[in-house]
């Protein structure tokens, strides 16, 4: 089966592999130490899975805003996203 039609590139492969790895890691984490919903800085009670979703969604918007508003390197958006996600997972 040829996968040429999917037009894979190295950056997108790394991107999806990272997300898959995150999901697997979160599943293992949940199985070994079951989490409960809690309220942090966000106005709603969230599970770690909810916070991961919000982190990824927010990161996507951070990258889009960076592309739309600034001419600087996209790596800065990645750094901001990483900080945002870490903070959200920890205190969100």
């Amino acid at each position, binding site marked *: 089966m040829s996968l040429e039609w*999917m037009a894979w590139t190295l950056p997108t492969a790394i991107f*999806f592999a990272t997300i898959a790895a995150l999901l697997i890691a979160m599943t293992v984490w949940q199985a070994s130490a079951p989490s409960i919903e809690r309220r942090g800085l966000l106005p709603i009670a969230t599970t770690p899975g909810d916070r991961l*979703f919000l982190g990824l969604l927010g990161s996507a918007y951070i990258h889009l805003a960076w*592309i*739309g508003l600034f001419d600087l390197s*996209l790596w800065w958006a990645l750094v901001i996203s990483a900080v945002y996600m870490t903070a959200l997972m920890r205190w969100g």
Partner: protein
Amino acid sequence: MGKWEDNKAWFLVLPVFLLVAISAIIPLMTVVNYSVQDIFGPGDRIFVGTEWFEDMLSNRRLHDALWRQFLFSGLVLLIEIPLGVLIALAMPKRGWGVSVSLVLLALPLLIPWNVIGTIWIIFTRPDIGLLGVAINGLGFEFDHTSAPLDAWITVMLMEVWHWTPLVALLAYAGLRAIPEAYFQAARIDGASPWAVFRYIQLPKMRGVLTIAVLLRFMDSFLIYAEPFVLTGGGPGNSTTFLSIYLVKLSTAMDVGPAAAFSIIYFLIILLFSWLFYQALQNVGTGDRQ
């Protein structure tokens, strides 16, 4: 919460996972791959990074289509949800009227979407259409092929006629599921009809209304077939909604920009669906916190 004891049930989810992988995840990954490349043909492509995203984010026509789309979906929700609830409240609760109203409501939902466009083209034609001739006969000039406002009114009318029944059916199902005891208690307390609606019917309909709002938002945000058949996105660009513009892009073989556009589109829908879901989950639960 205890540990997972029996994980066999997860195997039952596997078929769904495979289906979703083939119908959604793999296409989505492909779109992401396309969005960072300039594709000339099979095996002939170059990596362009975020160029298409920069193009799309500064594209005036996309901005216009986006605002038009928000206006459209906002109006759809503002009209269809209250109207659907009102219809459900007015529907008979027993007797032969129930079946008659259910069948009448279901009719628009059974018609194929492109046929709906065709029906409304003929219905609103100023020369032979029932509605078109009637409005012009009243002295108003009405022609959805040349006046943007008329085109908008026609598309909104069509959308409301087509999808309000879905909201009404969902709300009716929610209303019928409320135990009679609640209403008896309300009568004993001498509650007004408004109080019954506000404190019994509306909270009890939260679940079905969540589904109705999510379905109507996502569907109206993705609307394609009906306005495409009815107006083709015109006159000018006045009814070119996001999906119509997206198809114009992708049929011009600009798969890279179209893919970048699709991802932005997807992110907007994801964000708004999540917001609506959260908002509706928390409606009326303020006393629990």
